[in-house]
């Protein structure tokens, strides 16, 4: 199997329903998969391990951003990896998209490849979600001056040389904005690849509520005010 220098990082919280399928499918293309179990109450961790993933487990639930940061730290400590692919646990991404993005990353040598569902495709996307995500994109373009078309897609390919510039302090969902801000402030190179997002009944029940956008905006505003930002 090729892709020996790639590690897939999957933040997961109570994903026992989907995690086995997601890991199994990924393992057909990628040897190394890390599932960061964010303090799940179900058997997400053991199912992921049985499907062939390495598992890091938060003893308590911290949030998706914190789980992602833990995954990135795990990869950063292992110099054999040249690329990290972040992937959602609920099965909304296609493995084929990750493969294409990685090919683009290798060909261009950029620091980060972002996925865009808006230049790509969405399957059964609720219209309210479309409006909200479009607003999020406008917000990201305004605040970071990056020419992106999808700000909050969980599928990304990151060159491990960029990891020292990416430190996610946002534990919740504001980490996606934090990541694009880091691209802008650290002057990282990036490109976008059109991908597909599948909105299943499961992923919608598991995913964020639209109202969570209020919390994301609050977290970002608070981070700007605070001395730590």
């Amino acid at each position, binding site marked *: 199997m090729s892709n020996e220098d790639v590690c897939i990082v999957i933040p997961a919280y109570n994903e026992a329903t989907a995690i086995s399928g997601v890991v199994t499918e990924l393992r057909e293309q990628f040897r*190394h998969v*890390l599932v*960061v179990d964010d303090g799940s109450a179900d058997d997400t961790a053991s199912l992921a*391990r049985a499907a*062939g*993933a*390495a*598992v*890091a*487990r*938060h*003893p*308590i639930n*911290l949030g998706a951003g*914190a789980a992602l*940061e*833990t995954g990135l*730290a*795990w990869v950063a*400590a*292992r110099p*054999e990896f040249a690329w990290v692919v972040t992937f959602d646990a609920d099965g909304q991404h296609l493995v084929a998209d990750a493969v294409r993005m990685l090919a683009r990353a290798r060909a261009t040598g950029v620091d980060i490849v972002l996925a865009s569902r808006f230049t790509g495709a969405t399957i059964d996307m609720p219209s309210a979600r479309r409006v909200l995500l479009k607003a999020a994109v406008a917000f990201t373009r305004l605040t970071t001056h990056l020419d992106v078309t999808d700000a909050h897609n969980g599928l990304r390919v990151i060159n491990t040389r960029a990891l020292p510039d990416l430190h996610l*302090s946002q*534990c919740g969902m504001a980490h996606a904005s934090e990541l694009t801000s880091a691209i802008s402030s650290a002057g990282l190179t990036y490109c976008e690849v059109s991908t597909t997002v599948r909105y299943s009944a499961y992923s919608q029940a598991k995913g964020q509520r639209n109202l969570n956008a209020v919390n994301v905006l609050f977290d970002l505003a*608070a981070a700007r*005010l*605070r*001395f*730590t930002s």
Partner: protein
Amino acid sequence: MIIKVLLIAGTLALGMLLRQRATGTNLAVRRLVGAAVVVLGVIAVAFPSTTVWAAHLVGVQRGTDLLLYVFVMTFLFTTVASYQRIFGLERRITELTRELALRAADDIRR
């Protein structure tokens, strides 16, 4: 009039509090302010007419109104200070949890 200036300045100071680092000096200042509030509270209870006198001093008619203003400002400062403290604790818990997770994590599976 004076009270308006004081209240607006106090509200702006809330923003400064949000940016403050938790240094020993800042902590000492907060504790001294806290102690002063307690002493003034005791005086206000023992000699209720002093609140009217103090109120007139800053252009407020009734002593109870002044007490309300002071109470609201104290509450706001306490809220912001607690928020800062909780945020700091959360960040430390996050780092601790991450460290634990990384130590117990599986290594690369070959």
